[in-house]
């Protein structure tokens, strides 16, 4: 085959690809998902070994969840971060997941509102703005010219930090201001605090407690003070939409287990902390000193309420910071609390009114 022919064939293939690209763009996206992986007998749960996934850590580790799900096999997978969890959900490797609100919002938007639903809350609160004792920061007016860290660009704490700074009249370096923000893993943030490379950080618990006790930090802001009633969601349960539609009975059993675990944790705080630490050790090989855990838990609410208004507000804040594409986020239909409310009703607990605001003004 001489070169001209080869170039010709190449050109034809490229032209075909371009044509079909335009075709698939104009079709509304209802892609074919391979759902055969999730059989009717298995529930695959994704979660992280974090304190705001306490129900999962305790419930799965102690076997409570498997007991409640009976003949349905519980398979689990742990993740280090929310985005990876949502990735796995979409790739059909898990069916439900405990995950933070921001990766949830991203996933919902990226899938055009199709592929996931929030079916319950898991935790509220548990994030703090810690500054170094010797950073010279004694109040909100001392933040200019400083360097702060958050766990990940665009995550819940990152959005909280940037919004907080903006609200108080500061600007970050990427828009010509004098405050620098670095994104680093929580453990690296501890290192940087100790080395005085940063002046403070907005982190989830238990890292807030760890920074305070082990890295000479003090809590400047408890994020609960910034939200109505001190409540804002920091973990929810999401389900892949097709699984939710095909197996509502299994989802119901899961939510029963989740609600039961939530109630138990709230009624047995001390025991829960001990068991959580034990399970954490099983999952990660490391434990946290119980007094640190107790302090961390004191700033956190284990709940089943997804605190919908806070999720919508988080999305708006993320959008305002440019993290969510150019269009205002449309989160219509992200929540499906119908099965949760069935479970709550059967347990004589008050239902959670579903709040559908397409995009708060």
């Amino acid at each position, binding site marked *: 085959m*001489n*070169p*001209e022919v*080869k*170039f010709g*064939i*190449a*050109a034809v*293939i*490229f032209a*075909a*690809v*371009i044509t*079909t*690209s*335009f075709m*698939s*763009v104009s079709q509304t*996206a209802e*892609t*074919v*998902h*391979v759902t055969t992986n999730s059989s009717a007998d298995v529930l695959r749960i994704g979660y992280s070994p974090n304190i705001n996934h306490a129900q999962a850590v305790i419930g799965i580790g102690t076997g409570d969840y498997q007991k409640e799900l009976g003949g349905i096999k519980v398979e689990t997978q742990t993740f280090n*971060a929310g*985005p990876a969890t*949502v*990735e796995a959900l*979409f*790739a*059909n490797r898990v069916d439900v997941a405990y995950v933070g609100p921001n*990766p949830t919002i*991203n*996933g919902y938007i*990226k*899938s055009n509102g199709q*592929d996931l639903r929030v079916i319950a809350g898991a935790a509220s609160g548990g994030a703090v703005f810690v500054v170094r004792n010797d950073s010279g920061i004694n109040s909100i007016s001392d933040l200019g010219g400083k360097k702060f860290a958050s766990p*990940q*660009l*665009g*995550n819940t704490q990152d959005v909280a930090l940037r919004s907080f700074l903006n609200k108080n009249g500061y600007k970050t370096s990427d828009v010509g201001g004098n405050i620098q923000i*670095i*994104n*680093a893993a929580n453990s*690296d943030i501890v*290192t*940087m605090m100790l*080395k005085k*490379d940063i002046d403070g950080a907005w982190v989830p618990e238990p890292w807030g407690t760890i920074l305070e006790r082990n890295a000479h930090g003090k809590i400047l802001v408890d994020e609960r003070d910034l939200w109505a009633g001190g409540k804002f969601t920091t973990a929810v349960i999401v389900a892949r939409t097709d699984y939710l539609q095909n197996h509502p009975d299994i989802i119901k059993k899961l939510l029963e287990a989740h609600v039961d675990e939530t109630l138990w944790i709230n009624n047995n705080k001390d025991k829960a902390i001990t068991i959580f630490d034990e399970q954490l050790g099983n999952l990660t090989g490391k434990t946290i000193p119980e007094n640190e855990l107790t302090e961390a838990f004191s700033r956190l609410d284990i709940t089943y309420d997804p605190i919908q208004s806070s999720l919508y507000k988080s999305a708006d804040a993320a959008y305002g910071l440019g*993290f969510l594409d150019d269009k205002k986020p449309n989160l219509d239909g992200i929540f499906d609390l119908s099965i949760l409310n069935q479970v709550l009703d059967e347990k004589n607990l008050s239902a959670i009114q579903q709040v559908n605001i397409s995009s708060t003004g």
Partner: protein
Amino acid sequence: MNKKIISEKKSQGLHDAANAALMLAVFVGIWEVVFMLGIWSKISLPSPAMVAESFYKITLNLSLPESVGITLGRLVAAFLISISFGTLIGLAMIRFKGFGKTLNSFSAGLLSFPSIAWVPFSILLIGFNEFGIMFVVIMSSIFSVMISTYSSIRNIPSIYMDAARNMGAKGFTLFRYVTLPAATPSLIIGLRQGWSFAWHAIIGAEILMSIVGLGHILSVGRDFLDMSEVIASMITIFTIGLIVDRFLLYKLEDRIRKKWGLDHHR
């Protein structure tokens, strides 16, 4: 070279380009077909068009050009340090034979030490900043330069040295006009290997600790579930690596080989 050889080289180039174009087209074609079959969800595997759109977006808002500039800047700076110190240490290894032998053995272990494994140490020792990243790149590539310098010079046929000394060359003259040129073909190969390690290292280091750069774009793309951006940055990384290796280093090596008459595949 006469006209026939020049036109032969040109048509060879044309053949290569045609083959490359065809291979690329087939790859993109298969990708589009797999995408349309919907085996993976759109979010996990975007289409070629979606990736092209992502490319366009990050080029337009300048984040891609900026990141390429920053990444390459860090890389070149770190690599130059690697080359300078690596060569000096390599020469010291020649000069002090015991030191040389011992360090050579150690370096063999550190040669293929995974670059990411240097990151936690770098964060603790240097810091979570530009120098931390450069440290990772230096540690990943310096052993390659060291070993390459050491073995390139050791492998010079002793007859060159004997002949040169016979003609009165010694000290710096010997080094500059005999040792260095004789070692150069082998040194260039070491340089290519060191570059390869450095390139691996910088992307890994940037994913784990950075605010801007190519690795950062890849990492951010993933965090925001933007697979198109991830793939676009992967393609950029691949292209740069290819261009530098193929069109810079390979050509350099080629020229030196020809100059030395080592080009057996005439």
